[in-house]
């Protein structure tokens, strides 16, 4: 157990260090930087989702006055590399796919970049795009991963002989024998749609060649470490590419893949001038990765007393045009498919395939929400088939401390899912559910649970570094390469430093995300920054405290172990009146030649790449558990529904910033609430028909009720002070709760398993129910 401590800042709703600048309109984002003599850049994307690129003629575009560069694959020093996501080791094993900068050979999707243009103005750059002549041999293409895996299917890439990206499985127990002992078996197909991140800031940034020959970028990205890939593509040493990162206007996984960095670097090198590139909304939505569409088959068996004995699951994932993060995401889907339940007999098989759709990669939840949707739909159906209360069925099967995941791994953090489910159930049912509203709409309620990892796959050997420097006036600078996408990733680091050194937030200055000046913290992905960089920060403050305490001990005349930090002082724990100002101790340490600056590294647990034919053991450091409760009203005349109540619960381990933690839970809830029903990109044969916010509907303030958050603090996380990560887990288990609540209202499962679950489909289900 954690030692009980009085925490002054940790756990409170401390204003973030950057909130005031953002509220007052002073925060600059990727599109807010400019330079004299700057050029504007545009990308020519493919006109077709599937084609063979025969040739590109840039002569007319280059001749247009005001155009300074038109680049194609032939102009890229290294056009093909492997995709890296900040990992400090080469993982191998098929996990790192092809990164192709500009099109060559087969064109795999409409998002494929064919040429880059830099010109005096944006208008001239757009004009130049129209003058580039591309010779395409249009091919048939394949748009469904199930078809892509059939023998004789159109092969998406010119580099591979088949469309299969990865095949893997997890198994335990004896599935065949277990099904024989089941009283009820529910078997069905589920389907999830691609999901758009829909950050309000599109991708963009600018850069220039500095006086030392360094390609210097100002681009907001979730993975600062992409500078290494950019350098490799350019044929430069890593030291000659620098990204002075910029806070992102939202990321959610969509800014985890390289966006504009390589394009800018190529154009800066070609023109020797500053260059800016910002994607339009349409370009952003058609081009960046989506959450993997999944085709899932679930067969779940239970005994009549409600014990789930067996889960047999197969998953087909649409990887789209390139590999990117597909294998990593696939691990999460495969590993998480049975949910936070103790199921003794499991067989999960998964396969991912290339198609000519926009590529799939990271999206908040990283393979978790798809399987969670199917799994939690199954749970309600098993309960109904057995005549057991739906929450009670879950209760009889939920994991508790000491239980194993299907890979055999026993999570080390607290497993609090049953505790939070009880809280949500009590809250949702504190009033008796009415059958209908006075306006005639039917009421439905549902509860769903979920588990999701925080921290990266352990075979990536993840690490983070943070540096702190104490100034002579007692203020502190934290240097951390932590890309801040809006979750408060940098602010919690400041909070931890202030807490540990007994200072205020205002005393701590954060200098973040500059690849030349800040220690590398690794990616802002995988809900890892609080866990990884928070722990690195704790280590750094511990080193500084070890230096300061002997000085204070000498000055105060008491042993170090009896002293503590607080109120800008170092004081005697038993008699806080005996104290010495922090700044005085800092002065003495400096006079004595002590070091006022330090860097510390935190390493996650390391494992080896698993055997994909039979995944065993640990894959991630730990998991976070969530539960969502939903009440909906369904209009049975139209099939439209409204969410009346949203309850979001999590075991956060320990809240570091109350507002940020609640903010994740509230935002996560809305992020996925409409995914099954409203947020449909309308992919048709490789074309994204819903490419802006008038056709792709994300919830407005008027569409949603207040989220009621329940945050449990078990202290059982692996992060600082026993914290767990909540960023991605917060959007898990909401989607099935919404759909199961609709099911509860209309009393039929028809049409509720395959997204998009439109009002038309809900209405058809109601009509079918009534005609029986």
């Amino acid at each position, binding site marked *: 157990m954690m030692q009980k401590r009085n925490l002054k800042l940790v756990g409170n709703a401390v204003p973030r260090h950057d909130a005031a600048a953002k*509220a007052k309109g002073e925060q600059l984002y990727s599109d807010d930087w400019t330079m004299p003599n700057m050029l504007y850049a545009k990308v020519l994307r493919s006109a077709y989702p599937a084609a063979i690129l025969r040739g590109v003629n840039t002569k007319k575009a280059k001749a247009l006055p005001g155009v300074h560069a038109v680049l194609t694959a032939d102009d890229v020093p290294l056009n093909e590399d492997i995709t890296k996501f900040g990992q400090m080791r080469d993982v191998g094993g098929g996990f790192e796919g092809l990164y192709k900068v500009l099109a060559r050979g087969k064109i795999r999707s409409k998002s494929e970049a064919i040429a880059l243009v830099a010109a005096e103005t944006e208008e001239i750059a757009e004009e130049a795009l129209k003058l580039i002549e591309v010779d395409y041999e249009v091919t048939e293409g394949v748009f469904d991963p199930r078809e892509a895996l059939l023998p004789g299917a159109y092969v998406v890439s010119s580099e591979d002989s088949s469309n299969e990206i990865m095949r893997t499985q997890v198994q335990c127990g004896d599935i065949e024998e277990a099904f024989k002992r089941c009283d009820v078996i529910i078997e069905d197909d589920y389907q999830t749609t691609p999901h758009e991140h829909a950050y309000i800031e599109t991708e963009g940034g600018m850069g220039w060649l500095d006086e030392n020959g360094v390609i210097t970028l100002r681009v907001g990205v979730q993975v600062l470490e992409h500078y290494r890939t950019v350098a490799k593509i350019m044929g430069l040493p890593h030291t000659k590419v620098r990204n002075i990162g910029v806070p992102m206007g939202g990321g959610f996984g969509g800014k985890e893949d390289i966006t504009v960095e390589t394009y800018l670097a190529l154009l800066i090198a070609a023109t020797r001038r500053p260059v800016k590139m910002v994607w339009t909304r349409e370009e952003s939505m058609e081009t960046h990765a989506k959450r993997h569409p999944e085709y899932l088959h679930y067969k779940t068996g239970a005994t009549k007393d409600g014990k789930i004995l067996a889960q047999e699951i197969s998953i087909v994932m649409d990887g789209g045009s390139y590999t990117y993060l597909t294998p990593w995401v696939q691990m999460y889907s495969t590993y998480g498919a049975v949910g936070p339940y103790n199921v003794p007999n499991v067989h999960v098989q998964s396969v991912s395939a290339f198609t000519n759709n926009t590529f799939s990669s990271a999206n908040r939840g990283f393979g978790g929400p798809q399987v969670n949707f199917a799994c939690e739909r199954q749970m309600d159906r098993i309960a109904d088939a057995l005549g057991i209360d739906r929450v009670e069925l879950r209760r009889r099967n939920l994991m508790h401390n000491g239980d194993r995941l299907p890979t055999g791994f026993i999570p080390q953090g607290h497993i609090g899912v049953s505790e939070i489910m009880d809280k949500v159930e009590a809250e949702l049912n504190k009033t008796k559910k009415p059958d209908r509203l006075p306006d005639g709409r039917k009421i439905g309620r549902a509860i769903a649970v979920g588990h999701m990892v925080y921290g990266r796959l352990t075979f990536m050997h993840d690490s983070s570094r943070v540096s702190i420097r104490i100034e002579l006036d007692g203020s502190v600078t934290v240097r951390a390469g932590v890309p801040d*996408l809006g979750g408060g990733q940098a602010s919690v680091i400041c909070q931890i430093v202030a807490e540990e050194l007994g200072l205020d937030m205002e005393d701590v200055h954060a200098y973040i995300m500059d690849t030349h000046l800040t220690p590398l913290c690794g990616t802002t992905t995988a809900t890892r920054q609080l866990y990884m960089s928070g722990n690195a920060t704790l280590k750094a403050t511990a080193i500084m405290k070890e230096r300061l305490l002997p000085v204070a001990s000498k000055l105060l005349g008491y042993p170090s172990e009896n002293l503590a930090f607080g109120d800008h002082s170092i004081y005697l724990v038993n008699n806080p009146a005996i104290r010495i100002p922090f700044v005085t101790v800092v002065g003495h340490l400096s006079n004595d030649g002590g070091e006022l600056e330090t860097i510390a590294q935190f390493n996650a647990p390391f494992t080896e790449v698993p055997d994909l034919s039979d995944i065993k053991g640990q894959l991630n450091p730990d998991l976070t558990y969530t539960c969502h409760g939903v009440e909906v009203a369904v209009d049975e005349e139209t099939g439209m529904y409204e969410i009346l109540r949203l309850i979001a619960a999590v075991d956060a381990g320990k809240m570091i910033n109350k507002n940020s933690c609640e903010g994740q839970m509230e935002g996560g809830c809305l992020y996925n609430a409409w995914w099954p029903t409203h947020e449909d990109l309308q992919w048709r044969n490789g074309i994204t028909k819903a490419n802006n916010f008038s056709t792709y509907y994300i919830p407005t303030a008027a569409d949603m009720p207040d989220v009621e958050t329940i945050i449990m603090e078990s202290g059982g996380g692996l992060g600082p002070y026993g914290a767990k990560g909540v960023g991605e887990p917060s959007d898990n288990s909401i989607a099935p709760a919404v759909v199961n609540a609709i099911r509860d209202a209309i009393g039929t499962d028809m049409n509720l398993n395959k997204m998009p679950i439109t009002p038309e489909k809900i209405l058809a289900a109601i009509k079918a129910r009534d005609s029986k």
Partner: protein
Amino acid sequence: MSEKINIKLKINGVFVTLEVLAHQNLLRALRDNYYWDVKCGCEVGECGTCTVLLDGQAVKSCTVLAAACDGHEIWTDKGLGLSTKLTARIQDAFVECGSVQCGFCTPGMVVAATDYLKNGGKPDRTAIREAISGNLCRCTGYVKIVDAIYKVAKDIEEGLL
């Protein structure tokens, strides 16, 4: 290429002359002149992050022709915050209530909130939600944004502002 024209307008209380393209929208004209607090999210009037006050009314600046603003008055989040007690209070409330995550929708939200409150908006969560429904936010789930506006509305009602 497009024709350039000069327009005279008052931005954040200062008379300025801007050279704009004849077809340019107000959002682009403002950003080209370094009013960076006016953000661009979609440029077709859907996301609301470019919201400014035009002659005292909240508008999405991407849907307004810059040339049509000749002789008119514009206020942005930053200018309002530095000049009016109400907006400064809204900005502070956003900080206190944890309403700011990535912050990209925030300037537009603050302007929308200013518009709601200066027109007598009440501390009514449903009405506040309706008032900011033209401004999309993908991070917060809107709860803490509504909290902040509600808090200021309450202060106004109680005569504290």
